[in-house]
């Protein structure tokens, strides 16, 4: 049952992946300018040699129709070959770049997700428990304020306040020294603050929803203390919707990483995306975009699957 559902969902991702890849590919095609002309100019030191030009066009098979090149790209991508990042220095393979960048961002992202869970969920529960009081307003308002600050503003503010003024953190570590290095604290915290508003509000709403259920009233009627009601009865049932929002944070964390990794000079996925897009490297940009969409799709799939595992009422096959 479960297996069949997973298979069906994976199959359903195929047409979506086609749309995703064709969007990324077509955008790249129409923007690319003339890749061969660019490469010849670079090679000739500013001068363009026409025979070289045709040779390179021939080599890159740029004269084939768009459809042919698209399906060739898909075919190669399925075999783990995303092409070369022609504009990037050294012209590395895109999959090699990704293999270097993704592990870094994965650590960063997971650590930030932990921050989101450990900060956002308890705050949301607190806000619901003290609904419509000062505590509630302070938590929801504070989360809204923090999340309204864009990552590329929050990062420098955090650097100035925490490092230069208060001197809580030793110095701003630029670069990546592993997730357990103290230089990772600031990027992880800043990245984790970006989705906090959504998580707090969503947690609060789902806890409130559960609090209005009859079994909560029954638990209160039995004379259970309010915190016991929340810990024993409400939290478990409120967990499911909270997982949904945690799945959605994957997208926010990826979007935010382009700024955070840039500012802290962490050579991860976001940094690679910024380099590829700003440098006009079509191959690398296409690869980066498709992989990012794949990650977001996968996290959505994981959320749906966890529903089936955690809630017996959800019938996944239906």
């Amino acid at each position, binding site marked *: 049952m479960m297996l069949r559902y997973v298979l069906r969902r994976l199959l359903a991702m195929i*047409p*979506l992946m086609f749309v995703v890849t064709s969007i990324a590919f077509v*955008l790249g095609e129409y923007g690319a300018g003339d890749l061969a002309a660019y490469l010849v100019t670079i090679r000739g030191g500013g001068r363009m040699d026409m025979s070289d030009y045709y040779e390179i066009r021939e080599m890159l098979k740029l004269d084939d129709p768009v459809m042919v090149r698209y399906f060739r790209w898909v075919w190669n991508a399925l075999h783990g070959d995303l092409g070369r990042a022609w504009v990037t220095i050294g012209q590395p393979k895109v999959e090699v770049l990704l293999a270097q960048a993704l592990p870094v961002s994965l650590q960063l992202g997971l650590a930030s997700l932990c921050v989101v869970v450990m900060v956002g969920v308890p705050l949301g529960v607190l806000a619901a428990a003290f609904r419509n009081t000062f505590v509630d307003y302070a938590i929801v308002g504070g989360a809204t304020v923090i999340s309204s600050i864009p990552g590329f*503003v929050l990062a420098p503010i955090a650097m*100035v306040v925490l490092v230069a003024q208060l001197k809580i953190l030793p110095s701003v570590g630029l670069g990546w020294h592993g997730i357990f290095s103290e230089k990772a604290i600031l990027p992880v915290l800043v990245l984790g603050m970006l989705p906090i508003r959504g998580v707090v509000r969503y947690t609060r709403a789902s806890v*409130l929803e559960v609090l209005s259920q009859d079994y909560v009233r029954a638990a209160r009627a039995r004379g259970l203390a309010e915190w016991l009601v929340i810990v024993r009865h409400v939290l478990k049932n409120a967990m499911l919707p909270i997982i949904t929002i945690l799945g959605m944070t994957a997208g926010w964390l990826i979007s935010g990483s382009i700024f955070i990794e840039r500012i802290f000079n962490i050579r991860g996925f976001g940094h690679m995306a910024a380099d590829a897009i700003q440098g006009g490297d079509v191959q690398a940009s296409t690869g980066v*975009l498709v992989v990012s969409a794949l990650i977001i*799709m996968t996290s959505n799939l994981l959320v749906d699957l966890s529903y089936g595992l955690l809630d017996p009422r959800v019938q996944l096959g239906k």
Partner: protein
Amino acid sequence: MVQNADATTTWRTTRPRSLWGDAARTFSHSKAGMFGLIIAVILFLTAIFAPLLAPYDHLEQDWTQLRARPSQDHIMGTDELGRDLFSRLLMGARTAILVAIIITGTTTAIGLVLGSLGAYLGGWFDQALVWVMDALMNFPSIWLAAFISVSTRPTIGRWAQAIYQATNWESMRNPVVLDYLIVFGCLGLVGWPGIARLVRSQVLSIREREFIEAQRAIGAPTWWVTTRHLMPNVLGSVIVAMSSSFGNAMLSESSLSFLGVGIQPPGASWGNMIASSVSSWRSDPHLIFMPGIILSVAVLAFNFVGDALNDALNPRARER
């Protein structure tokens, strides 16, 4: 008997309360919402009157005063090229508001049309629409917008050149105008699926509700049901979505400009102002803080307005 007569009079003198009146009353009771609204109004006024308020030309460079501290001459100091920061901030507000208005307008228009078409037509059109929306929403939107911005720049540049040759409009040769056009294009392309999906699902679900069925049962014509019952119910959530899209558009424009693919210098945008001073955060933090804090306050204001509108216009979603 007497009581009965009283009841009748009260019933007669009570004026009917409209959805919008109720919404306005709820909205005005929300402190955060009113705060946001006031900030938003100030921003709009600033954007409109920016050239009058600005003490200097935002492009004028004073090379004797690079990165000057706030002083009487320059109340917020100057940037790395000696341009007056306050004047640039005011013009940045213009950019942000202009982009937000145009992007919200276009995405809402596209979303309304495509979303309701999808819901009404169904069939292959709806299926294709859902796929395209899902595909677009699976990308990190800023990344996609940045990529579109970079990859359409040469093409749009050629178009602008062609328009210039055809019409002799001087503005088509202005690189800043080109930046604007590109930003409108890529944010519009990336932003519409959110509203289209909302409209589609709202139309689909409201169409099935009892009060629409009741209207049909008493023989109301389709245009009546659509304009009097369907649209007002969809409109509430669309207005909420528009207000949050407004803040998002400002944020997206600044993000693109920060990445160097949106409004580029010398054009004034809060994003590119932050980008050009982020490396000197230790020596001149005020160059980041001024545009950064104003951008954050603007986004916050529209978030507050959106939340308050949500409470006011979606009574069913209101928290207990």
